[in-house]
């Protein structure tokens, strides 16, 4: 990778020579590449799960219960003798899909609300933003838990819950960006040429917000995957026997003395996935707009 591929002039740092800066930049590129690779591998294993998983994730072998890792069972087996490796691989399907879908739900509702609130202002803005404040006044995860308790447990309902939990963050971000571009000359010009509101919002305002949205989405996917796993761990998310990482860990708690291997791999899978999205989000933010550091 050429270190000047983005063509961005770097601010000169007080300490460190040019060489050190280049090295650091290369390092940050490397880690970004590494994280993207991890995500691509995860996505590939999610798509190709039926082909790469050595066993059926739900097949029970009661004679092979809680077998420690070996050549045959790389990650060992769980309390029903199911192959942990296959379950972790299939679990990447659930987690990635759930992460992406729930963030998309947040996007789909949050962006139009934020755009219109910032653009039209007045009572509409007031109503929407107060509603978002209410949604944000629940402690971490509690809103998602309350929504899941209303809709009932399950994958789809958890995704809805986490989507709604994500929505206000998008709404606020988009609104604040809209407020900062609303009075610009090119928007006035668009008005003067008779462009409709919808077109102005989609063609002139939205592109200004894309960078922050991409950054936020990457970071929010990490949060959503954590939240899905947490709901699963509490028994409110994906229901057994579906191989979900959080649900797998809630079972491994019962066998912590007998079979500690059952708690290693699902947790490691969650950590790796979330870490990859978090680092990617951080590097994207630093590339696209370092000023966002204050916001996210």
């Amino acid at each position, binding site marked *: 990778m050429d270190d000047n591929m983005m063509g961005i002039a770097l601010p000169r740092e007080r300490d460190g020579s040019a060489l050190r800066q280049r090295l650091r930049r290369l390092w940050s590129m490397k880690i970004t590449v590494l994280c993207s690779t991890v995500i691509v591998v995860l996505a590939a294993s999610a798509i190709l799960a039926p082909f790469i998983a050595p066993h059926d994730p739900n097949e029970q072998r009661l004679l092979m219960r809680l077998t420690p890792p070996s050549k045959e069972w790389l990650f060992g087996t769980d309390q029903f003798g199911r192959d942990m490796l296959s379950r972790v691989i299939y679990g990447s399907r659930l987690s990635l899909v759930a992460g992406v879908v729930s963030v998309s739900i947040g996007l789909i509702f949050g962006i139009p609300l934020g755009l219109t609130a910032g653009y039209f202002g007045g009572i509409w803005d007031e109503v929407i933003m107060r509603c978002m404040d209410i949604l944000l006044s629940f*402690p971490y995860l509690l809103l998602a838990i309350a929504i899941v308790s*209303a809709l009932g447990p399950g994958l789809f309902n958890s995704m809805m819950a986490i989507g709604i939990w994500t929505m206000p963050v998008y709404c606020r971000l988009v609104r604040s960006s809209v407020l900062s571009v609303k009075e610009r000359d090119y928007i006035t010009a668009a008005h003067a040429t008779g462009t409709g509101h919808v077109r102005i919002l989609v063609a002139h305002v939205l592109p200004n917000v894309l960078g922050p949205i991409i950054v936020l989405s990457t970071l929010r996917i990490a949060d959503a995957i954590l939240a899905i*796993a*947490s709901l699963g*761990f509490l028994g409110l998310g994906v229901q057994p026997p579906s191989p979900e990482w*959080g649900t797998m860990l809630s079972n491994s708690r019962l066998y912590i003395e007998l079979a500690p291997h059952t708690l290693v791999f699902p*947790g490691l899978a969650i*950590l790796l996935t979330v870490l990859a999205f978090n680092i990617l989000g951080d590097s994207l933010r630093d590339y696209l707009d370092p000023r966002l550091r204050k916001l996210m």
Partner: protein
Amino acid sequence: MGTYTIRRCLLLIPVLFAISLLTFVLVHVTPGDAAQIIAGQEVTDVFLARLRSEMRLDKPLVLQYTLYIQDLFKGDLGKSYRTHRPVLEEIGFAFPATITLTAAAMCISILVGLFVGIVSAVKHNSFLDNLVRSVLLVSVSMPVFWTGLLLMYFFSVRLQLLPSTGRGGIEYLILPALTLSTYSTALLARTTRSAMLDVIREDFITVARAKGLSNLTVILKHVLRNALIPIVTMAGVNTGILLGGAILAETVFAWPGMGRLLVESLHTRDVPMIQGCVMISAGIFVLVNLCVDVVVTWLNPQVKYG
């Protein structure tokens, strides 16, 4: 300043109402007949009808809410479907456990988070700083319950140093509090580090150093004092994270707090209990955020008391 505080307190009332309404609606749209769930399958229709009217399920939703709010003002959160005891009493038993746990985690996160953040900022771009940043990044990506399970495995199962579940002396508190604090410690450390770095670059810090003040004085009196606003704001955010995270930490360590009460109530569909737990957690969070806002305005003379 005084009027600002009063205004913020008054604004709290509609927020609390909205939280109660949202919680009420969420909990009451639950599919299925709550009376049937409590009574079980083997009951007569007459008994079910009586139970429904006792639980006010035969009344329209709006009236149910009005009555609920009326009771709320009397300090009555209803009766648990499961134990048939007042919700407030049940929460009263669990509440001290949760407060102990979150307060302990808060102390750890403030002490460790501030210290790590300051050291990391002072030693900016050193090996130590890079190491700290990597550890912090891993800490914010760790699922709370996995941290808990790992700690439980190493310290209770392997080393047998600390008890794995339950509540008792201080030894019972250590693992749950550590587990709960990891995420917020990392967040606080990251915020402290970047807030300190912003201030360190300012001219008045160079002036302070030029005056010949010792490094420690500059860092603590000039840098930290001016970096306090984002740090205090983060403490408010952290309260929410701790209150929510407590649900997970309590489940891992069977800590008899409000979080575990909530999870048990969710599994048994104990509506008044769910409602009570959610309302009280959200209420505490809103109150803490109010305090944080007031402290921030007090710290920052530039904020207009609007």
